[in-house]
């Protein structure tokens, strides 16, 4: 296949992906939201309720981050940081992790993160949302059984509804790095994210 033919074939696959994404939007538009508790979390200025994380927005995007022990979660968060102001114009955006707030503050300062963070500490929030599960991955178990993903919520009067959730994995739409690397022909990509590459 010539270069141009391969590009045309790749673009045809991208069209198929776009069609699947359109079906996903249809599914998401018809979701029957899930009522959730107004969880008490640990915020940077003291205890904070899930309902308080919405700020002036109706919707909230909440990242389930595995904490400072996970370089991949850190890379996903670096990506969110890059487009944080764009996301925050549409919905509140908060990253939750199992680390105590002091650890979060130090780590966020080191990476230049601008988004708000809260700690799961002392809550069942991650478990209830499906982002803590032991026995799935050895690496996750070692860090405390946390798993990475995102949940979206809506404030509806006194109630809080969950609208969607998704796990994170290499090649998902929530991190551009692996998708860019896929443009390079490479039979055995062994590259893995690290905290730094000095």
């Amino acid at each position, binding site marked *: 296949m010539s270069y141009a033919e391969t590009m045309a074939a790749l673009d045809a696959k991208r069209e198929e992906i776009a069609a699947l994404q359109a079906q*996903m939007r249809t599914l998401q538009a018809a979701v029957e939201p899930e009522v959730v508790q107004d969880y008490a979390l640990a915020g940077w200025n003291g205890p904070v309720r899930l309902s308080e994380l919405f700020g002036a927005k109706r919707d909230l995007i909440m990242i389930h981050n595995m904490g400072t022990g996970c370089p991949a979660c850190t890379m996903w968060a670096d990506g969110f940081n890059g*487009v944080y102001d764009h*996301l925050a114009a549409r*919905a509140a955006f908060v990253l939750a992790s199992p680390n105590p707030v002091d650890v979060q503050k130090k780590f966020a300062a080191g990476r230049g993160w601008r988004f708000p963070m809260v700690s799961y500490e002392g809550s069942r929030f991650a478990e209830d949302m499906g982002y803590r599960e032991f026995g799935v991955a050895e690496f996750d178990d070692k860090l405390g059984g946390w798993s990475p993903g995102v949940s979206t919520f809506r404030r509806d009067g006194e109630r809080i509804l969950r609208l969607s959730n998704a796990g994170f994995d290499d090649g998902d739409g929530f991190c551009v790095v692996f998708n860019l690397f896929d443009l390079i022909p490479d039979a055995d990509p062994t590259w893995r994210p690290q905290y730094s590459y000095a």
Partner: protein
Amino acid sequence: MNAYAETITALNAKREQIAVLHAEMREMQAKIEPQPVEDYVFAGPDGPVKLSELFGDKSDLFVIHNMGAGCPYCTMWADGFNGVYNHLADRAAFVLTSPNTPKVQAQFARGRGWRFPMVSHQGTSFADDMGYRKVGADPFADKLGSWYPGVSAFQKRGQTVVRVSNAELGPRDDFCLVWHMLDLLPEGDAGWEPKYSYA
């Protein structure tokens, strides 16, 4: 299973289908017949710089075809690349090209906190030759000089530079996470559009 869980299961099934398509794309990409390209000369911050010099000590190079400071969409994509720049730069060289002069680029990059290198393709046929200038294809693009947004991947093979892939950039592509995040809301972007700032 409750109705919420059923929707999430259905969404995850679609994600699996997308992952299968991505795997097929990797197979196609692995068999690419690369395209030889000229060693274009760009305007860099320190004077003229050749395409072959943009690789640094890497054998792979990503070049972002950015429409310039006039495009808030291109700016958002670049904000995203900036967030993960150190990760990208570990695997391959990463450079953003635009029609702006190096002086305008430097000023704009400073304002946004961009850390990646930039070069200007003004006065070269690079963007045209790579397929990222299309006159008459889009009124917004025509107003800015008919530049088109995309990414090209190059490899250095001995003394020659070849192109190994390219893709256009657009909403919901694999190269900007914002819409994928907003599509987790039932109304999606709800009329939201990228801006330079939202104050």
